[in-house]
């Protein structure tokens, strides 16, 4: 086993840590059983309270003729969901109404202190014309965890999924009839109370918008080039890298521009002295190689340091990989030196990102900033010519599951 493992063994919380954590633990999310027991709007909003305001004929938009050409996040469906919360009364009634601008107080915490979090998930129209959501409970569980960390209100996953289902019924014509398109759903939770103190929001708003997205790979897989430069950082221990809070994204925009100026499409986020690989752009990262012991192995960095977003696609790939049992599947820390060595020894076959938008995204090149020489090195990753087809098999299988061509128990929710 490589020496690196011992250096990054999970840090066990000592007594003080656990005592401090114990106070945090009191803020844990409310379990479903409690929601079923009693009606309590302090704990969640309820699907049964849902108010629907139908769009007038003039408010319905024309659907795009060719959904495969739609770019991500430019076109929105007819409806949005909103639900207000305040500390005194808890959640108000959830509403589904025609999409429109939100009225936000200029002093709202969301505009100053990034009191905001979101999720990204998708609904698919299957080959049998049924609409399905992909593992929505995973996104909702993460959203609940994020809400606790962001000091925003908790809610119940199943109530939220029921409301999302209602939205999809209303906007069903917006779910494209194509097995390369989908309806992207963006649940968002923001702190809205108008006081300038940096503190817990006493008012919040949940809202969901959706929009059709076209084919990510209209002309086959496009390998991406990554800028790997340890002078930029995405997440750090003691921070919030493991949560889908808005604050993790703003600092990356400028770094993304830096990458673009060097002809790279994405940033490979490195962490620490050893330059551990953590994420790529806003995706998790996977690597398929023959390890130093000569085993074929699929590797992705582990979650325990809190540097990585626990992706739903990441989790799905790990589960499929382990189920297939064709190679070793490992969650462990991996650094740039190991990548460079494996490349030099021609043991590295595939590297790819994983995420909701694209499922998988092959890496073709890494532009690596060597911090010792202060020079850039070009590393070519042979993902596109790999004879193992690991990434391709993941892509096909996930797609087959999402469009209802194969059944994977418990992964798809029918509408």
């Amino acid at each position, binding site marked *: 086993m490589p020496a690196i493992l011992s250096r990054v063994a999970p840090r066990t919380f000592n007594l003080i840590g656990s005592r401090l954590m114990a106070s945090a633990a009191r803020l844990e999310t409310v379990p479903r059983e409690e929601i079923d027991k009693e009606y309590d709007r302090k704990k969640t909003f309820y699907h049964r309270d849902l108010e629907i305001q139908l769009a007038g004929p003039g408010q319905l938009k024309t659907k795009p003729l060719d959904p495969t050409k739609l770019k991500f996040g430019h076109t929105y469906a007819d409806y*949005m969901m909103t639900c207000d919360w305040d500390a005194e009364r808890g959640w108000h009634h959830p509403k589904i109404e025609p999409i429109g601008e939100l009225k936000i107080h200029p002093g709202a915490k*969301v505009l100053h*202190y*990034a009191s905001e979090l979101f999720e990204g998930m998708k609904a698919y129209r299957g080959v049998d014309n049924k609409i399905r959501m992909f593992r929505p409970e995973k996104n909702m569980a993460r959203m609940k965890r994020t809400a606790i960390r*962001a000091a925003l209100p908790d809610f119940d996953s199943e109530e939220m999924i029921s409301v999302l289902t209602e939205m999809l019924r209303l906007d069903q014509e917006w779910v494209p009839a194509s097995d390369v398109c989908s309806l992207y759903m963006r649940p968002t939770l923001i702190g809205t109370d108008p006081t300038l103190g940096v503190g817990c929001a006493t008012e919040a708003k949940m809202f969901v918008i959706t929009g059709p997205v076209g084919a990510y790979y209209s002309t086959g897989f496009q390998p991406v080039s990554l800028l790997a430069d340890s002078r930029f950082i995405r997440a750090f221990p003691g921070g919030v890298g493991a949560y889908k809070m808005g604050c993790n994204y*703003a600092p990356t*925009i*400028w770094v993304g521009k830096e990458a673009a100026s060097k002809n790279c499409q994405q940033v490979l986020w490195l962490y620490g002295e050893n330059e551990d690989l953590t994420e790529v752009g806003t995706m998790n990262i996977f690597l398929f190689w023959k390890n130093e012991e000569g085993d074929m192995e699929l590797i992705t960095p582990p979650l325990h340091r809190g540097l990585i977003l626990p992706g739903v696609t990441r989790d799905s790939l790990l589960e499929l990989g382990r189920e297939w049992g064709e190679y070793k599947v490992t969650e462990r820390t991996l650094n740039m030196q190991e990548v460079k060595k494996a490349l030099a020894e021609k043991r590295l076959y595939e590297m790819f990102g994983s995420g909701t938008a694209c499922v998988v995204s092959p890496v073709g090149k890494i532009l690596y900033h060597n911090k010792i020489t202060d020079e850039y090195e070009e590393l070519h990753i042979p993902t596109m010519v790999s004879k193992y087809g690991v990434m391709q098999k993941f892509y096909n299988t996930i797609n087959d599951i999402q469009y209802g061509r194969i059944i994977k128990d418990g992964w798809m929710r029918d509408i």
Partner: protein
Amino acid sequence: MQKVSLALLKRRGFPSTSRCTHSSFQYANLVVERNTKKQRLPSDPDKLGFGRYFSNHMIDIDWDVKEGWFPPKIRPFQNFSIHPAAKALHYAQQIFEGLKAYYGVDGKIRVFRPELNMERMRRTARRATLPDFNTREALLLIDELIRVDADMVPKTDQASLYIRPMMFATDQNLGIGESSQVKWACFTAITGSYFNYDRGIRLLADPEMVRSWKGGVGQYKMGCNYAPTIFVGKMAAMHGCDQAMWLSGEDRLVTEAGAMNLFMLWTNEENELELITPPTDSGLLLPGITRQTVLELAREWDLMKVSETNFTMSQLVRAVREKRVHEFFVSGTAANVGPVSEILYCDKEREIMEKLHIPTMSSNMQFHKRLHSTLSDIHYGRIEKKEWQRIVEL
């Protein structure tokens, strides 16, 4: 300076885009729409709190990648209409500043070193990939906003007018990248005191709660630096503390407290009396305007060694035990200078929570008090320091 009402502008048929400018918004293009309603305020300044009561008007300027800056508007204070896909709501593409105007003993309104805030805002804008603007034009607009709401500036030296310039991304596109539309806004809030200073401020220092990191954006006033601290503030409150004190790295450098800079007056290891504050070149902490002012005053007074040097938690603990720490205080626009009376330190190695008593309140020198009153004298015009006081001509 030409100022015409919005209605008049419409009647004259100005197409609004013909007055757009790329390099910066222009005060000369300002359009003022007066508010007919007036905000009611509590008469007791103690009830004002921080940032709860807003004035009647605000500055609102739109920017668009094609047109540049639209003519600035001062309009009645009211809600923004924001598209639910706006980048500010999802990816925290937002920045802000905080500065204050004071009603002086001579009846003049003074803003404290506003050009430093605008310079910092522009540096932050660059890092946040938001558009640049001209410092002078921004200052002229802020002057005008204060003039329009001049009766809101509290006529007491216990309160002030807090000014909050902000800029955020408004385009309706969920892709993570530069925004093609942006809003620059500024409003003001009537503000009492931020802390109860009588018992001193208590800080919680937990090395597992981290505010910033090398390679991050800790030195910029971006919204994203604040969201993660809210939960930590909640934990601090659970332990009876007012704020978190932020430590950094393996050697636990002391960096900031809450959203403020910090200072320590101590007898250092070389037995010199020293005012020490961590340096800003690490990129881990915000270069505060009050911080800079305190340093400048202390150097001018020359009563002690003044250093911008890192110090670690273990140095602090040892100095407290050896009774070498005389005063510990925080500095910020909202807080001015605030004394720290206690630091609750989660010592992971010794597995204890150690309460460090800091004798700031009972120190012989009362250096923090001298700073506080000097700053206050400058704010309220009891002392003249022209280069730090921007007078708003009424």
